[in-house]
């Protein structure tokens, strides 16, 4: 129940933004010149660019992290092979990859997508490995005696029980992806909300800065709440 309520807490935020938009468009507030509509300030093109980068980078990074996590969690030999390599790479901050990625991809769409990919990959990977490894070994024993093959055990026991950990990774990284994309766009990419923020700063457009920060906050919150809701939907019955 608590988590469902948390998802509902987004509704007032959206109502507030809707009222802002309506009030400005219908010119209900005197001096509306200084109070432009929300969507005019945020500039949808920039927002959609950032959104697309986050979605593509986050989805591909999460899927790759999940698949690698499953392999490493399930097969000890794969874990032993890759764990030392990933342990070296994991502590590097996502933005730390920026210089090398700029050299590899140049200033292109691949650059922010790759940064989000890296930012999403490692946490999902480690959460999936932990989720699978912490499943009670006795459950696997019983499933085997009931006739389950290795693959069936993975799909019917290990993955469903690792969901809680996987969702923790997704939830934390969905917010982090937005923070990272803004930082990347501010320093290296000429389009997107981060770039808009930098331009607004040079033009001293405080309204744009505030709206961009609000959009960022709402997107971080929305992504996190979405995964909290999904986790609740999929695991609350049995947890």
């Amino acid at each position: 129940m608590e988590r469902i309520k948390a998802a509902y807490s987004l509704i007032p935020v959206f109502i507030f933004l809707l009222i802002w938009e309506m009030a400005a468009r219908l010119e209900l507030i005197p001096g509306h010149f200084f109070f432009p509509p929300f969507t005019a300030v945020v500039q949808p093109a920039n927002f959609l660019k950032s959104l697309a980068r986050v979605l593509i980078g986050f989805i591909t990074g999460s899927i790759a992290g999940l698949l690698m996590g499953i392999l490493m969690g399930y097969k000890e030999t794969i874990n032993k092979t890759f764990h030392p390599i990933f342990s070296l790479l994991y502590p590097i901050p996502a933005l730390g990859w920026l210089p090398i990625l700029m050299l590899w991809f140049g200033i292109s769409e691949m650059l922010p997508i790759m940064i989000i990919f890296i930012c999403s990959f490692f946490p999902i990977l480690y959460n999936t490995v932990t989720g699978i490894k912490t499943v009670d070994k006795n459950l696997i024993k019983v499933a085997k005696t009931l006739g389950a093959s290795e693959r069936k055990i993975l799909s019917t026991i290990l993955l469903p029980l690792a969901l809680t950990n996987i969702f923790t990774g997704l939830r934390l990284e969905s917010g982090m992806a937005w923070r990272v994309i803004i930082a990347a766009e501010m320093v290296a990419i000429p389009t997107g909300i981060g770039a808009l923020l930098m331009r607004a700063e040079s033009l001293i457009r405080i309204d744009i800065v505030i709206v961009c920060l609000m959009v960022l906050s709402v997107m971080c919150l929305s992504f996190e709440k979405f995964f909290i809701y999904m986790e609740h939907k999929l695991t609350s019955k049995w947890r």
Partner: protein
Amino acid sequence: MPAIELKNISNFICRNISLKIADGELMVLLGPTGAGKTTLLNIVSGLIEYEGSILFDRVSIDEIPVNRRSVGYLLQDLALFPHLDVASNITYGLKIQKRHVYEIKTRLDEMLNLMNIPDLARRYPKDLSGGEKQRVALARALAPLPQVLLLDEPMSNLDPLTKETILDEFKNIQRKTGITTIYVTHDQDEAFSLGDRVSVLNKGKIEQNEVPDELFYYPKTEFVARFVGAKNILKARIIKIKQHEAVVYINNESLAQPFKIKVKRYPFFEKGKEISLCIHPEKIILKRVNEAVGNNLNRIRGKIVNIRSNGKTLKATIDIGGTEIYAAIPKALSDFKIHEDVWVCFAPDAPHPLCGKRCRAAEASRRFLN
């Protein structure tokens, strides 16, 4: 259901175990923690590697992997799948084996009714009591109609009342289904009330394998004697042999003076030979020092050094010249006090010699002689 035969089973714990379990029999493996009971179940189920051979109805199953061995395994912590409801837990094995939907539904209803849990089908394990979990786990193990049922201390987490009910129900279900069963426990009450036969395991070896009464009254080794509760172990030397009786000296070094008692005679008894005797605390009779003791009873004078009661029974520890003797007497018949001097009495047939494998043969020939 198949008869099971274990032939020279060995691994990191088990040492050369051979055991035969008849078709439909309930064999209890009894032993302390670390004796190798669970390991032996894991071996039969195919979960761990082993040397030797396992036969189901004289056919070796050594090459059959665990998921095709057709064994139902009920673990100590039950290991219900927490993300599946009761119905899905019970039908897990059937679905894995891709049985027909109608068969799955029918079998589920059968199991829910057999375990008397028809209302629990949609509940999740977290919402079940200990007894309910037990029933669900047993239903899950039985649902795919396994050839053999293995149970690893399944009652260890239950309160005594629920345990008794579940044990009764389990015994009935086992009889009804006629499934060959290996049941592991460290609780002798559970072992003797359930088992058609009981095998005592110690340090990876079978110490004794008997029907419950034989094991309880005629243990072969000191370990088995202590484990089944015959805690009084006395060293003795045979001094005289009669037709049905032998006279022995209790020659414990801590006793001020050795004294003689009469015990049941065994054919392998030889004059001058040292033997160990065990006596169940229940077979000890306590008499006050001023009370008359019948000639047919052996008696030793001692002092009560400890008394505790568990409701119906009074458990007294009596010191006889430095050796402690344990007695369990009905509470209603006694009002003994601590530090009281008493006669420790027992019938000549109460002490049982611990004579390894010769005991059983000796017991058979003794009966023949009688």
